[in-house]
């Protein structure tokens, strides 16, 4: 019983924490952000399984987390507002070659992150970007200037 309650609590807490630390960290773009994900998982798993090393306990924890995932997915489908709270919305961070500094600050992104995504599209500088949009999964979509 305890494992199920701890696993459910850990699921909601981690969901909140991953939203709190920002999308960029979740998309695991650099080793710096990868550390965060590893430590979140490693620290939480000890609290979930506690002193119970049986496979029954592991199965119950996995089933609980799976059930929480199905619940959140179902709630997201039923309520657009809930979906926006859980996943966020796409955010424009560059428009017509200009950074939106306020959005970058909110998303805890740096100029280099935008430029790194731009280089993958073959663009060299910010002036070549018409729109840069941070998607719900933390990836940065780049739309080049026409011509």
């Amino acid at each position, binding site marked *: *019983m*305890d*494992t*199920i*309650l701890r696993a459910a609590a850990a699921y909601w807490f981690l969901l909140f924490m991953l939203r709190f630390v920002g999308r960029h960290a979740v998309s695991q773009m650099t080793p710096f952000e990868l550390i965060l994900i590893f430590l979140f998982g490693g620290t939480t798993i000890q609290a979930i399984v506690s*002193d*119970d*090393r*049986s*496979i*029954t*306990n592991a199965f*119950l924890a996995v*089933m*609980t987390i*799976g*059930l929480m995932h*199905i619940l959140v997915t179902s709630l997201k489908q039923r309520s657009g507002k809930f979906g926006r709270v859980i996943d966020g919305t796409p955010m424009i961070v560059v428009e017509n070659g200009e950074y939106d500094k306020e959005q970058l600050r909110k998303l805890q992104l740096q100029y280099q992150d935008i430029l790194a995504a731009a280089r993958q599209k073959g663009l060299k500088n910010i002036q070549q970007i018409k729109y840069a949009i941070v998607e719900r999964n933390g990836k940065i979509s780049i739309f080049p200037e026409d011509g």
Partner: protein
Amino acid sequence: MVVLVLAGLAGVFGRGPFSKTTAEAQGVRLRVQYERFPRFRTPATLEIDIPRQTSTQAQVQLTGDMMKKLSIQQVMPMPALTQPLPNGAIFTFNLPSKSNSAKVVFVQQAGAVGLASGEVALKGSPPIQFNQFIYP
């Protein structure tokens, strides 16, 4: 999956309200609280309520398959004496003189899976018999 998780919450897979149960021996008022479903390599408790004795010592005898499959990790309070038996052990506890009864707790840990039968008795009295199923 919902049913399995609800069953887990209830304790059908151990460590929940349904997992804990009590057996009593009416004649000697001996009471044993044990876990129906202990789990492999996980602590489980066996609580024994000893009724008031004519002497200041009580001898509790634990025998059965349980003693092979669930090793005793800790006994609270510490017994004054432990005597081995072929299929278990006798634990002698000093009782508080003015108390009506005393409670002793055995912390066990399963080293095997499957069915296990146990017997708890005050020395010289008929035993309480119970069965446990150890989950892997």
